[in-house]
């Protein structure tokens, strides 16, 4: 597991402070002068140097992937490919047992299914937990919440043995189902449900709407953005998941990020092809990031707005 998963997710729950951020930053920016000032120059230079360092590995990935294998290790080093070529991309995409299209589909399909499933399940579960009154409600909420405490490593072995029993090894099921009941989505959606004014619901109830209609017509329209945010995060989490798919699916059933490491054992000294594969595997998330960047931010501010 990655060192980053938790922090990653935690941002979704970024609420109070995060929320205030957006607003605060905005006003402050407006209040202040926007023109660059000379005493900012050292800071700007420092930031630029850091940005170059941060982008260097990505630059090196792209340029390496465009070099012939001999040029990747050539001395003196080629900062830019002497003869840029797409040969590496062609080789790996045509390689009979590097089914990149299939791997991409696996990742897209399972991540999408997982994201949609998580959102649907979270909404369905958070709805009664936040807006209905029944016996055991608080107890059940605490049980779900408490499950967040269980370290994930405990599940690895039993889940794997269960997959063998279910006959789910090397199936999409194994990539989708086991992670669905995690508490995070329920917890997050419940926060949003609570923030919706009850009066709206009352009105619909008076008009004779049943709970399903209330959910669908009254509450969900308020939840589009949080659901999109949750979905996006779950999508990314599933896409980037490493340990579980590494062991539970194989061959053409692999997900793209895992596949490139097994793929790397074949091309392990052929860095041109390796970096081409790596580039292909990062394109979808990079694109998602570019398009959904505002969802990250909007999600953050929305999370916070609720109780202000």
């Amino acid at each position: 597991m990655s060192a980053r998963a938790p922090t990653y997710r935690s941002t979704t729950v970024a609420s109070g402070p995060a929320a205030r951020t957006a607003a605060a930053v905005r006003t402050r920016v407006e209040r202040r002068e926007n023109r660059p000032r000379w005493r900012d120059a050292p800071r700007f230079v420092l930031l630029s140097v850091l940005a170059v360092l941060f982008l260097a590995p990505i630059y090196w990935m792209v340029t390496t992937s465009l070099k012939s294998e001999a040029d990747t290790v050539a001395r003196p080093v080629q900062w830019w490919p002497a003869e840029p070529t797409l040969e590496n991309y062609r080789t790996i995409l045509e390689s009979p047992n590097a089914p990149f299209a299939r791997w991409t589909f696996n990742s897209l399909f399972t991540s999408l299914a997982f994201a949609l499933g998580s959102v649907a399940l979270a909404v369905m579960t958070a709805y009664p937990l936040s807006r209905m009154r029944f016996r055991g409600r608080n107890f059940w909420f605490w049980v779900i919440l408490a499950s967040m405490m269980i370290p994930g490593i405990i599940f690895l072995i039993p889940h794997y043995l269960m997959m063998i029993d279910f006959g789910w090894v090397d199936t999409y099921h194994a990539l989708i189902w086991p992670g669905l009941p995690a508490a995070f989505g329920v917890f997050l959606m419940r926060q949003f449900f609570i923030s919706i004014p009850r009066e709206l619901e009352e009105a619909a109830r008076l008009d004779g709407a049943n709970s399903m209609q209330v959910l669908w017509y009254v509450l969900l329209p308020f939840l589009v953005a949080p659901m999109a945010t949750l979905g996006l995060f779950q999508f990314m989490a599933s896409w980037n998941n490493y340990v579980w798919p590494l062991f539970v699916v194989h061959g053409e059933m692999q997900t793209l990020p895992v596949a490139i490491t097994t793929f790397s054992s074949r091309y392990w000294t052929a860095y041109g092809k390796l970096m081409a594969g790596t580039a292909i595997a990062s394109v979808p998330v990079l694109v998602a990031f570019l398009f959904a960047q505002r969802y990250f931010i909007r999600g953050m501010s929305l999370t916070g707005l609720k109780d202000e």
Partner: protein
Amino acid sequence: MSGPSTDSAAVAPAPRPGVTLRPARRGGLRPRVDGNPLEPYLYLLPHAVLFFVFIVYPVGFAIYVSLHRWNILSDNQPFVGAEFYTRLLTPGTPQFTFFWKTMGNTALFTVITTPLLIVCALGLALLLHKPIPGRSFFRAVFFLPTILSVSVMGLLWKWMFENRTGLVNVVLDMIPFTEPVAFLTTIGLAWIPIIVGTVWWTVGFNMILYSAALAAIPQAYYEAAAIDGAGAWAKFRYVTWPQLNPVTLFAAVTTTIASFQLFGQPHVMTAGGPLRTTQSVMMFVTEEAFTRFQFSSAAAMSLLFGVLLLVVTGFQFRLTLRDLGRGRA
């Protein structure tokens, strides 16, 4: 959270300080006068089923497996009691030797990375705090690596640090008085690519947390401090830093939990080498399970490790509870 098991609950993001967890007030709930009294339970049912199958049952099953000698090819699983636990606590057994060795490795990684990820994130957030041309670009650049998967990040940095041909060594070769270093295969130095890669990869998240927290500090505090004659350092020391405390605590706890579950970076970059010096606990558990098919031993290890982790997650949970208790942080 992501799919499956390993990630699921563990890394479940903790509500951060400041999040309201307060249960909705009873009085405010709409009294149920119509509809099926079972209705709420029906909504809960699908999740409850999955919750039982994939969270409750597996915990019990893991304990059961760890008390037997599990052989997936056999119908007969002999009961061995606490044998696999005693092995983990008896010096001389392979399990003892490597479990605690990899535990030490993991702890070393955690102790180094967690402060780094806090300090670097705070540094970046401070650099970006005041307006500067291209601020959103810089922020996006520092955040960008966090969206990559661990395999991409691992392969990238492995290539950057490759013994002779990697970019880092190419540069070291060009700089006078420095020489290429065999980072990936030298005991001790092999941590450098892993740690540098990890910081590059994850610092963006904590940076965003800090940016948000910084923006939330009331300007009046600084103005008051200025009236007291505080300089830049004093302002940071007596206003900024204390105000950031909750976020720092939160970031420290989540980063610690994540670091303890280290797997992908050494798996991709060093395969745990040289001489298992960069092998993490997670890697050893998976080796025991999936290479040697010792599922019971692996289950015992993951339970023991899980219990040790509980100390940290429990602390995180208490933070959450405290917020809950207060209704608002």
